[in-house]
C-alpha cells in the first residue's frame, strides 16, 4: 500500500477509535443504533474480490487497476469524497486494503455494464473499495451487487467522479441474508453538465445502512437518486442521503419508497443542501412509506437546508397503509384480497422503476428479488 493510503487508513483508524459505533444520540444515527456492533469488530477481515472482473478486461476506454498501479492523481482522489467523521466511513477506511480503480476514458461510451458482484460466503467482514472516474464526456453503466449467505459485515465504499459532460447510470442492489449487517457508502462528485443517476435496491441484511453523498460541483450538473426498501421480519434499513448543490444551475430529483412488512423498520433521512451563492437551483425529493405489517415502522426525516434565494426546492413525505378504497375497488372486480394487495404494492414499487427504461440489470437481477419479496410477504407467513 502506498504511503498516502496507509496514512489515510491510519487516520481513519484513529477517527474510529474516538468515534466508536454511534448510538441513537448521534443525530445521523437517530433511528439506527449501531452501538451493538462491537462484537463484530473482531471478526476476520475477509477479501471478497468481485466476480466478473475478468469480463471487464480488454474493453476499449476502460482502465481497471489496483490503487498501487494508479497515477498519483487518482490515488489522491481515494477517500476525498467520504467524511471520516462518519463512523461507518471511518470504520471502512480503517480497514482499507485493496482499492480498485476504474477509469472510463474521455468521450468514451461503454455499452457493457460494469458489474461489481460481491457474494460473501463466510462469516467475517469484507471491505470492498472502489474509485470510479468517468472522464469528461464519458458514458457508462455501473452495477453493484451485494449478497451474503452468513453473518458478518459488508462495508463497501464507492467513490465516484463524474467529470464534466459525463453520464453515469448506477445500479446498486443489496440482497444479503438477514444474518448479515451491511454498512455502505456511496459518494459522488458530479461536474459541469454531467449527469449521475443512482438507483438502489435494499432488500437484504438484518441491519442495513447506506450513506449516499452527492456533490453537484459544476453548473448544469444533475442527479437522480432513486431507492427502494423492501423489508420484512425484523429487518432495519436506513438510507441516509445528502445532496449538496454546491454550484449554481444544478438540479436534483430524489424518490425513495419503502415497503415495510412484519415488524421491520424503514428509515429514510435525506437532506438537500443549497450552498450560499448557488442560485437557480431546483431540488425535489419524495419519500413514501407503505406499512404492511402490524408492527412495521417507518421513520422519515426529509430535510432542506438552504442558503440561496433563487431556488425551488421541495420535499414530500407520506407514510400509510394501502389505500382502502382502491383495495375495495379491486376486490369488487373479483380480485382476491391478497392478490389485490400485491397488485397495489407492485404498482407502488414500479413507480420508481418505470422510467428507468429497459435496463437489463432490472430485468435479470432486480425483478426476481422483487418477486421473491412479494411472494414471501403475501404468502401469509408474515405473522410478525
Amino acid at each position, binding site marked *: 500500500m502506498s504511503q498516502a493510503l496507509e496514512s489515510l487508513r491510519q487516520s481513519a483508524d484513529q477517527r474510529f477509535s474516538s468515534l466508536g459505533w454511534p448510538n441513537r444520540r448521534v443525530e445521523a444515527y437517530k433511528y439506527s443504533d449501531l452501538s451493538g456492533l462491537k462484537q463484530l469488530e473482531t471478526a476476520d477481515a475477509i477479501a471478497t474480490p468481485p466476480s466478473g472482473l475478468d469480463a471487464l478486461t480488454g474493453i476499449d476506454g476502460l482502465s481497471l487497476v489496483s490503487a498501487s498501479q494508479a497515477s498519483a492523481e487518482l490515488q489522491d482522489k481515494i477517500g476525498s469524497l467520504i467524511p471520516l467523521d462518519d463512523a461507518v466511513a471511518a470504520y471502512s477506511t480503517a480497514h482499507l486494503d485493496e482499492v480498485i480503480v476504474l477509469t472510463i476514458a474521455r468521450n468514451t461510451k461503454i455499452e457493457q455494464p460494469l458489474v461489481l458482484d460481491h457474494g460473501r460466503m463466510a462469516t467475517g467482514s469484507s471491505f470492498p473499495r472502489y474509485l470510479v472516474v468517468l472522464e469528461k464526456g464519458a458514458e457508462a453503466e455501473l452495477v453493484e451487487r451485494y449478497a451474503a449467505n452468513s453473518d458478518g459485515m459488508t462495508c463497501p465504499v464507492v467513490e465516484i467522479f463524474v467529470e464534466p459532460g459525463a453520464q453515469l447510470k448506477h445500479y446498486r442492489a443489496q440482497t444479503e441474508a438477514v444474518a448479515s449487517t451491511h454498512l455502505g457508502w456511496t459518494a459522488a462528485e458530479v461536474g459541469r453538465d454531467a449527469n449521475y443517476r443512482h438507483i438502489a435496491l435494499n432488500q437484504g441484511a438484518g441491519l442495513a445502512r447506506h450513506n449516499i453523498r452527492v456533490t453537484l460541483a459544476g453548473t448544469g450538473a444533475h442527479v437522480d437518486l432513486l431507492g427502494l426498501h423492501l423489508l420484512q421480519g425484523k429487518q432495519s434499513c436506513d438510507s441516509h442521503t445528502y445532496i449538496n448543490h454546491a454550484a449554481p444551475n444544478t438540479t436534483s430529483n430524489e424518490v425513495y419508497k419503502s415497503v415495510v412488512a412484519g415488524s421491520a423498520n424503514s428509515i429514510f433521512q435525506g437532506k438537500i443542501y443549497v450552498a450560499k451563492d448557488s442560485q437557480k437551483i431546483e431540488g425535489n425529493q419524495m419519500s413514501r412509506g407503505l406499512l404492511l405489517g402490524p408492527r*412495521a415502522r417507518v421513520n422519515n426525516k426529509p430535510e432542506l437546508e438552504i*442558503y440561496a434565494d433563487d*431556488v425551488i426546492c421541495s420535499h*414530500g413525505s407520506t407514510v400509510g397503509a394501502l389505500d382502502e378504497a382502491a383495495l375495495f375497488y379491486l376486490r369488487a372486480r373479483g380480485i382476491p384480497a391478497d392478490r389485490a394487495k400485491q397488485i397495489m404494492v407492485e404498482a407502488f414499487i414500479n413507480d420508481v422503476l418505470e422510467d428507468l427504461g429497459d435496463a437489463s440489470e432490472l430485468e435479470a437481477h432486480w425483478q426476481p428479488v422483487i418477486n421473491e419479496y412479494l411472494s414471501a410477504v403475501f404468502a401469509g407467513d408474515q405473522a410478525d
Partner: protein
Amino acid sequence: MAATVDTVERVKKISVETYKYGFETDVEMDRIPKGLNEDIVRMISAKKNEPEWLLDWRLEAYRRWTQMEEPDWAKVSFPKIDYNDYYYYAAPKSLADKPKSLDEVDPKLLDTYKRLGIPLDEQERLAGVAVDAVFDSVSVATTFKHKLEEAGVIFMPISEAVAKHPELVQKYLGTVVPTTDNYFAALNSAVFTDGSFVYVPKGVRCPMELSTYFRINAQETGQFERTLIVCDDDAYVSYLEGCTAPMRDENQLHAAVVELIVMDNAEIKYSTVQNWYPGDENGKGGIYNFVTKRAQCRGVNSKVSWTQVETGSAVTWKYPSCVLQGDGSQGEFYSIAITNNLQQADTGTKMIHVGKNTRSRIISKGISAGRSDQTYRGLVKMLPKAQGARNFTQCDSLLIGDRCGAHTVPYIEVANPSAAVEHEATTSKVSDDQLFYCRQRGMNEEKALALIVNGFVKEVLQELPMEFAVEAQALVEISLEGSVG
C-alpha cells in the same frame, strides 16, 4: 444584484425604525440580587408568599437544572449565557402592596400598556377581551375579572391562583411539562415569577377572549412566566398572548413554560403574537426566547389549536406541541415566522399521536430576509396504538435576499400501519412572474411584495381571533416593508 443589496439595506433600516415598542418605562423597581442559586429561588418564593410544596418543587427543579446542559441541537448560535448575570425577579415597587383596583396602580404602568395598544382602564379596554398584563415579574392588572367569575371562569395571575386555588394549581402544575423536561423548562420551574392561570369548568364556553400581555422592561432581567390553562369537559376558551420589550443593547432572557390541559370534548385555542425586541441591524441586543409550550389532549375528542405569529426576538427556540392522548383528539399548529437582519429562529411543533383516530394538522409559513436564519423543526409521531391516526403537514418557506437561510427539518415516525402521514414542504423566493403580474397591473414592487407575502401567510392569519388578525397582518407588513429595491 444591486437590487438585493439595496433590499437588505432597506430592510435593516426599517425594521429597527419600526420597532415602535422599544421605549422604556421609568418606574422604581424592587429587585432581588443578581444571580441564580438556591437562596434566589427561596427569595422568589418568599416574595410570592408561596406554600411549602411549591418552594420544594422549585428547589427540586433548580437542583436538577444545575445538572443539565443547555441544548445545542437547534440551528441557532449565540454567545454562552451567564445565568448568574441576570436578575430573576424585578417588580415595580408600587405593586408591592397588591393594588386593589386600577385606581391604585401607578399611572406610569397603565400608560405603558396604553402605548402598547392594550388599555387596561374601564373606559378604553378592548371589548370582548379580558387582559392580564404582566410587567417583568409580576401581573399589573387583570380586566373583566367579575364578568368571568360570573361565568365560572378563573382567570388570574398564577401567583394569585397559587393562593386562591392551590388545589387546582397543585393538581395540574408540571403535569404536562415536567420540571426536568428540558433545560429551559427546569430553569423556568425554579424561578418562574408570573403568568396566567385559566380554569374553565365543565360545559362552560368562556364568554370572551382571554389575553395576557407580557412586557419585559427592566434591564438585565429575565422573564420566566408560567401559564397553565385547564379546560374541563365540554368547555372552550380562546387565549391570546402578546409580548414586547424595550430596545436594549444587551440580550435579555425569556424562558417561558405554557401547559394546556384539555378534557373530554373541550377545546383550547391558543394564539401568540410574539414581537419581542429582535435586536438591531447588527444583531446587537434582542431577546433570547426559549419557550416550552405543550398541550395534553387528555379527553376524548378534545382539541387544541396553536396559532403563532413570530416576528420578534434575536433567537427563538420554540416548539408548541400536542400530546393527543384522548381518542379522536385533534391538534393544530398554524405558524407564521418572519426573521430579518440577524435574527435566528428554530421553531416548529410536535404532534404526538397516542390515542385512536387522533388528527393533527400543521401549516407553517416561514419568511427569511436580511442575514437571518430560520428553521422549521417538527415531529409527527404515531405511536403503536394510534389506530387510524392522521396528520397533514404543509411547510412553506420564502426567501427574500440572498444572504438568509431557510431550513426544514421534519421528523416523521410512524409505528402504526393504519396511521397516515402526509408532509409537504417547499422553499422558494417570491416568483418573478407574480411580481411582474402585479406591477403590470399598476402596483409598485413594494406593494406587490406585501400583497404576495400576505397571500402566502393568509392561511395562518385567518386562524387568529378577529381582534388580533388585523394587528398581526400589519405586523407582517411592517416586518417586510422595504424588502425590495
